[in-house]
């Protein structure tokens, strides 16, 4: 007997219903679109990187609550962060989603609602998609949306 209702924890639902960075208009310097091959969902991540920092971050697209909440947490987590720290900063939530997080739990507290996703392998890609798309975006310098 699974407990899928447990997948949708309060924090996650809060991000889903009031997402940060969703459809925000920003001065895009980098962007990418990622697709979930399982369901065909697409998410576009837009980034403004100036002076070596993520100055602005936004996302758009039709996606499920898990993907949307994960994207919202990503916008919260990576905003104003220096590019040099990005690899470390995205490792924690991505490892948590994949069930590969081995460090002390308290360092990942703000992502605790994502940790439950490892129990639902069919939904793992939904949560990973924004982070994967962000990585593509920062590697796609000056690629504009559209």
């Amino acid at each position, binding site marked *: 007997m*699974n407990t*899928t*209702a447990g997948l*949708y924890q309060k924090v996650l639902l809060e991000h889903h219903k009031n997402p940060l960075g969703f459809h925000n208009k920003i001065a895009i310097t980098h962007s990418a679109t990622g697709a979930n091959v399982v*369901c065909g*969902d697409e998410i576009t991540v837009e980034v403004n990187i100036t002076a070596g920092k993520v100055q602005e971050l936004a996302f758009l697209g*039709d996606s*499920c*609550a898990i993907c949307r909440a994960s994207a919202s947490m990503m916008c919260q987590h990576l905003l104003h962060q220096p590019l040099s720290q990005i690899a470390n900063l995205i490792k924690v939530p991505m490892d948590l989603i994949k069930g590969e997080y081995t460090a002390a739990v308290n360092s990942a507290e703000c992502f605790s609602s994502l940790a439950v996703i490892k129990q*639902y392998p069919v939904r793992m890609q939904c949560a990973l998609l924004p982070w994967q798309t962000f990585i593509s975006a920062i590697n796609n310098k000056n690629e504009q949306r559209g």
Partner: protein
Amino acid sequence: MATTSAWKHDFPIFSANAHPKLCYLDSAATCLTPKHVADAMYHYQCYSHANSHKGLYQLSANATELVEKGRNKVAEFLNAPTQSELVFTSGTTESINIVANCFVAPKMNRDANIVISSAEHHANLLPWQEICRLHDAELRIAPLTLSGIIDTKALDLLLDNNTLIVAISHVSNVLGFINPVAEICQLAHKKGIAVLIDGAQAVAHGNVNIAEIGCDFYTFSAHKLYGPTGCGVLYAKGDHLSHMPPYILGGGIINKVTFQEAEYINSPLKFEPGSHNVVGIVGLVEAIDYLNDISWFDITRHISDLSTYLVDKLADLDFVKPLLKHNCNVQSLPSLVSFQLEGVHAHDVASLLDSENIAVRAGHHCAQPLHQMFGVHSSIRSSLGLYNSYQDIDRLVIALNNAYQLFAIRELE
């Protein structure tokens, strides 16, 4: 009206030590397996298994007889004309690929075209798309009417002297309505064009009558008919198969072979290389017997009653948006309904339903272009089977209400 299905107890998956609370509404993806079918397969595999068509001993001869009797049983089930042949395949997908690669591809050129409809499953789109791409030929897409069936007049306009085949579904796996396949065959045949019908979603409706339809090829999978996965059928009219090269090469398909060349046999066995999936064929035959024993009249009535109830109950929910509203003028009610919940993603609905032991399909159901046509990425599909009851639909309605309350983002809509 009864709240439980008279046949539910035939399906061990609902037993106390398995999934007694399961509400299975995904029969369009695969039907659950009745005990009769599982038992027949178990007994064959334990007590009668041998390699068919090859051994000279009695056990092998018995396996060969099972396969060949199975061929006759399926032909009878489909009411296939006498002058026709049946190939056992791994499923609908392989059956369509055989026709694409062995019947159509040898005739392809850059002036050729192939006609399909906009409601095709990827299995009846990708093989045609690929051979058109390889030969720089045209894939023509027949539109649907507002009622969700193939628009025959528009399809007729797409047919010309360069059309090599019309390949369409008997019943769409997303919309569920029965297409006017006999009429389409008549239109195509008037212009000398062959027709393939993908029957994957139609066989569980019963009453498939190939003699009346008049198609050149008909395909289906056993698991859509309460049989096992990995077993399917390709029906071919007249002597089509004799003009087709083999698809996959291997043992059991030659008259004579040397290091330099091979002479292939001229029978359905040409398309059945290697060892037969005898246990799968046994399962398919048992499934047909099981359904015949129930009677197609009772099966059709059961599904039709449930379907009416499902459509009516969903229509009562103002946040449920069907991809296509049911039209009373369309032949037969669908045994499936695809819909969206306003402001809620299909995957979230499916996950929440799963927490209440309700299994539905969510996504594009291997029909991405059709969803694009409706301007959506995904939908929820609820499809019916013998084991379903009014109670299952009531559970679905309650769970959809819960999902809507939990997820709907009304302020952003």
